[in-house]
């Protein structure tokens, strides 16, 4: 199949994210505002291309871009970028870009290894509103968890006595970013991955829950974040521990993603 418009757009956005990452890194070392702004502008440009690529993909394949592993990876990384932009807009701290942009690049590289053919036809089981709700919310939730983990990394590497600046958020602010990202991710994950997912399973396969590896994977993720929130609410996992645990949570999510890649089950996406 010839390289199509959407694939071109994704490659362009990939290179631009990469450039943004380089600039964010220089920014982290040099702490010069201009470089940070340049990195941010590049990031926004990459995001625009990424969005255009998804739209093109949607038009070409005539269905929302969630049905293959490749499309899912692109949508999820888009959600990460979106969540990052939101947080940047709210807290005006660019340093997070240093951790978020490489995560995006990794996901996009992983995506580029997957088969890319746009299939016009969804497997009949994927032909359902619940499926779209399920996948969109789950992708956005995972995006938020990634941002929490990113902020967790910044939290852990930030030197204790480092002065708060426009560039480097204070520990308190970083904790707040983690905490907010978790509280965006958790409800979306609950509603999207678990509730909508099991309603979809019920309409497609006749049972809400069948203990397939991907389902148990998301149950494990969800229980972990439930535990994390309770510990946080009761004052146990705060600060450094919260940062570390948000990274652990993301690690568990990655395991589930990989398990799905290797194991299949009902959630083996079409064509992947």
């Amino acid at each position, binding site marked *: 199949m010839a390289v199509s418009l959407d694939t071109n757009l994704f490659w362009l956005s990939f290179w631009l994210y990469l450039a943004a990452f380089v600039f964010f890194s220089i920014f982290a070392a040099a702490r010069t505002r201009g470089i940070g702004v340049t990195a941010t502008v590049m990031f926004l440009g990459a995001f625009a291309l990424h969005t255009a690529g998804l739209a093109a993909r949607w038009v070409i394949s005539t269905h929302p871009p969630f049905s293959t592993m490749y499309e899912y990876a692109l949508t999820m990384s888009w959600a990460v970028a979106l969540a990052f932009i939101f947080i940047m807009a709210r807290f005006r701290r660019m340093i997070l870009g240093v951790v978020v942009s490489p995560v995006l690049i990794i996901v996009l590289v992983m995506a580029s290894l997957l088969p890319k053919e746009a*299939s*016009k*036809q969804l*497997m*009949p*089981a994927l*032909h*359902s509103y619940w499926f779209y709700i399920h996948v969109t919310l789950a992708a956005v939730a995972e995006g938020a968890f990634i941002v929490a983990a990113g902020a967790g990394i910044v939290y852990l590497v930030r030197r204790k006595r480092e002065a708060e600046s426009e560039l480097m958020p*204070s520990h*308190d*602010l970083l*904790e*707040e970013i983690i*905490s*907010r990202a978790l*509280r*965006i991710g*958790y*409800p979306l994950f*609950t*509603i999207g991955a678990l*509730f909508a997912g*099991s*309603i979809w399973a*019920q*309409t*497609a*396969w*006749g*049972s*809400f*829950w069948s*203990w397939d*590896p991907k389902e*148990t*994977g998301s*149950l*494990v993720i969800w*229980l*972990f974040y*439930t*535990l994390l929130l*309770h*510990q946080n*609410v*009761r*004052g*146990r996992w705060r600060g450094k521990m919260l940062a570390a645990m948000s990274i652990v949570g993301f690690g568990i999510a990655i395991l589930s993603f990989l*398990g799905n890649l290797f*194991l299949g089950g009902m959630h083996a996406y079409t064509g992947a």
Partner: protein
Amino acid sequence: MAEQPKRSGEHFISQRLAVIVIAILFGASAAGWLATELVPANFIEKKGMYLERWGAAGSRLVELLRLYDPFHSFWYRAVLALFFVVFLLCLLTRWRQLILKSLRLEPPRGADELRKNKLAMEYTWHSTFGGERGARGPAIRYGDLLGKSQTPDPDAVAKSFAKIAAYLRGKGYRAVHREADGAIYFAAGTGRWRSPGNFLFHLGILAITLGGVVGSFTGWKDFVYVREGQTVPLPPDSVFSLRVDDFEIMTTKEMEVKEYVSTVSILDRAGARVAGGSVQVNRPMKFGGRRLYQSQYSVDETSFKYARVDYALRGRIRRGSIDLTPGADVRITGTSIVVTPGRFFPDFRMGSEGPYSASGFPSNPCLEVAVKNGDETERGYLFLYHPDFSKKFLTPIDLVLVHCEPIFYTGLEVSSNPASPILFLGFLLGTIGLALMYLSNPRTIKGVVDRETLVIAGTECRWKASFEKELGEIGEGVRRALASSKE
């Protein structure tokens, strides 16, 4: 010592219990997940093989703990039961506190209680009023505001409080107050839907857990494979029967499956049609408390419904078509040539032991035919999609398979889950609860106004960094409100 602002939920002992049971369930689920990845599901069927591979002790352990199907093992069920019971007890004993927590606002008992508050301590109120005196305290002293010499008139307390309350209301805070000893003690809060939302969410999760348990005991599931035109008893009790009138696989031009559609009728004992409709993936049909799902299909791999073959007689200008059905000979009119259909292969492959069908999907349909002309009989294969590979007969006739309708069996799942209303209720409560809980951002500010001082402290919040900033703005706002002469 400075007190941390309280965050929600710390004063429930059961929070600790909750964490313990959630942690146990997490551990058990993670172990089960790992087991499904490491232990093949076919362990029981291939026990001999695994016995060799893992040794007696290993295999025994796998069997004892049911690691090939961990989520139906006794240990996982025990953990689930424990979780359910603790969860239920927690909610039963504490539902009132859970619902009311963010709805209840309590004015402080005294100013000292607030002065100890760490969050307010971090903010230098004095600097707001221009006098940088270095003292870091939560108090806005009227002395600072109005000049030490002035003593506010007796109404000042009530008036000041009215201004403060109005200002806070504008910020989305609802205030309650209590008067005592010429002072006003107040609490102002926002985000009060959090606790009811939190309660609804927990209730929803409880309902879902309950629904899962009830469903696993009362639900059932059965499969029927039915050929087009065939009638079979409808599970579970055979009071009704099920007839499949039609089954169709719709595909695109590229042979990708678009939809599977079974058209079915439900018949009563007397054979009268009482219900019917189509069943598709994602569109189950409901009948009498059960649901029919399009679950699988298969093709009869030996026979077919009917086939159409075009023929051309070599050496003569004669063409035509014949329709073949299994086992029936067809003579080509005006000749002595007889065509007899033989075996049918929906997905033809040639193997070392002869032809076979690689799958039940008609991706390479092939019909075996025998062509008899007098005493001579030739056999050959006709391919629907690859006519060039079809047999060239010595008999002067060319045959092209132009249509071949396989006999489909549709695989329908008939199931019933009496717990689904409980589950849907749980999803609904859970979703509403999450929305209420996470769209609200509960914060509480408490204060004391008396003739000398105004103490304000932020006492509860979810996010300290933002709250601190907000408190700074509120401090400034309150100052301006107090300074304004508007009543």
